[in-house]
C-alpha cells in the first residue's frame, strides 16, 4: 500500500445495470475529482457495448480498464468482460483471469474487497440493481474497513436480489434512490 490517502468510488451492478448507470454516470461533471471503478456482469460473448454507449453520453472520461493501469481521478474504469478487475494499490489496477467468483467474472466482490484492502476507509461502495448475490461480501468488507456502503433502494431497483443480499450482509449500509446516489456522488466529487 502506497501513497497519500485518496478516495475512490466502486460500483457493482448486474441485471438492470445499463439503465441505472445511464442515470448516474452522465450526471457526473467533466471535472469529477475521484476515480470510479465499475463492475457490471455481462455475458462474455456480448462484448462491452456499455463502454462506448456511456462514452457517448458522459462528460466524465469512461474507459475499459487495462492491466496495471494507473488509477486517475475523474475517470470511470469498467472491468473488461471475462476478467476480474482488482485494485492493486491505491495507485493502480490489475486484471486477472482467476476463477469466477459467485459465478461471475468480473466479480463485484473481487473489486470491492481489493478496493477495501488498498484504500481502507476511503472507499465509497455502491451496490445497484442485480439478480444475484455478488458484491454483498465486498460491501461488508468496505464497511468494516471504515468506508461508506450504499445500496440502491429496492423499491426502484430493476432486480432486487443484489440490493437485498447486500443489505443482509451489511445492514449498516445506507439505502438510497438512484437520484440520491447521483446527488451524493456529485457532491463528493465536486473538486
Amino acid at each position, binding site marked *: *500500500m502506497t501513497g497519500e490517502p485518496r478516495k475512490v468510488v466502486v460500483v457493482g451492478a448486474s441485471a438492470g445495470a445499463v439503465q441505472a448507470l445511464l442515470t448516474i454516470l452522465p450526471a457526473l461533471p467533466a471535472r469529477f475529482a475521484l476515480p470510479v471503478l465499475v463492475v457490471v456482469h455481462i455475458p462474455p460473448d456480448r462484448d462491452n457495448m456499455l463502454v462506448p454507449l456511456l462514452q457517448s453520453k458522459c462528460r466524465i472520461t469512461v474507459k475499459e480498464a487495462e*492491466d*496495471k493501469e494507473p488509477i486517475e481521478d475523474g475517470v470511470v474504469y469498467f472491468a473488461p468482460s471475462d476478467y*476480474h478487475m482488482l485494485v492493486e494499490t491505491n495507485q493502480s489496477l490489475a486484471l*486477472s*483471469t482467476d476463477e469466477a467468483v459467485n459465478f461471475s467474472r468480473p466479480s463485484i466482490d473481487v473489486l470491492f474487497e481489493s478496493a477495501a484492502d*488498498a484504500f481502507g476507509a476511503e472507499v465509497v461502495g455502491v451496490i445497484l440493481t442485480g439478480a444475484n448475490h455478488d458484491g454483498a461480501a465486498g460491501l461488508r468488507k468496505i464497511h468494516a474497513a471504515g468506508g461508506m456502503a450504499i445500496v440502491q433502494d429496492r423499491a426502484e431497483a430493476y432486480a432486487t436480489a443484489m440490493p437485498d443480499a447486500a443489505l443482509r450482509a451489511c445492514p449498516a449500509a445506507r439505502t438510497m434512490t438512484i437520484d440520491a446516489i447521483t446527488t451524493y456522488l456529485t457532491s463528493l466529487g465536486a473538486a
Partner: protein
Amino acid sequence: MSDTTEDIEIELLLEALFQRYHYDFRNYARASIKRRLAQALTQLGFTTLSALQDRVLHDPKMLPRLLDFLTVQVSEMFRDPSYFKALREKVLPHLSTYPSLRVWIAGCSTGEEVYSLAILFKEEGLYDRTIFYATDINPDALAAAEAGVYAVDRVRKFTENHQRSGGKSSLSDHYTAAYGRAVFDSSLRNRVVFSDHSLVTDAVFAEMHLISCRNVMIYFDRPLQDRAIGLFRESLARKGFLGLGSKESLRFSTHAPAFADFVPEDKIYQRREP
C-alpha cells in the same frame, strides 16, 4: 496507509518460499496473490499465514498444495478463437517458409494451449517440422499437460472455440472419449517437450520462431513483466513472433521498440531486425 499484519505475513511467506524453494512470487501482482492466499488459508485449514509459513518451511509436501493456490490454472482450448485464427491466417504462412520450427508455449498450465497449437500446426501441415517447448512452474499442471486428459463436459466449449478459430478438422478426430474424459491423441505431443521453467528466475534456452505466452504476465508487476518480455526478445529469431493474452501488451515495456505490431487486435507482435 501502513502495512497490516496480513501484508507483513504475505511478504514473509513469499520470502520464505523463495529462500527455501526458489519459487519467486515476490513481485507478482499482490491483490490477486492476497485473495488466493486467503483461500489457501481456509482450504488448507490454517488460521494465520504465519502458521502456513511454518508448515511449508518444514514440510516440503506442503509446497505443491500451496503452489496450486499461488498459480492460477484457468485455461481452455482455443481460448480467444480470434487469436488462433490470426495465427492460422497471418503467422503460419510466414512460418511455413522455414524448414524447421521451434515454438515456445510459456506458462502452458494444464496443456489446453499446447494441444490447440499442435492441432493448428497439424491442420496447416507444419506439425512434423516443429518442436514445441511447453513450460510452466507448476509440476502438477505440467503432468496434466503431458497426460492431455480433460473432463468431457469441457469439450463442447473447446469444440466451439476450435470451429470459431477456423478449424479444418473436427476436434473429435483428435481425442477418444471414455469414462467421462477426453483423452487427446499422443500424436499431438510426440513433438512436445514439457519442462519446468520460470519466466522469473530462469534464462533463455533456445531460439524460437513463435512464442505464445498468454495470461501469465498479467499476474506479474510491471518490472517482472519487463523481465519476461526481455527473455522473449532474446529468445526470438529474426522476425519471430510473440503472442500474448488479450489483455496483455508490450505498450508499457522498455523492450517495446524491439517489436512491431503484427496483429494488434490479437496481441501478436513480430521481432524487428536487431
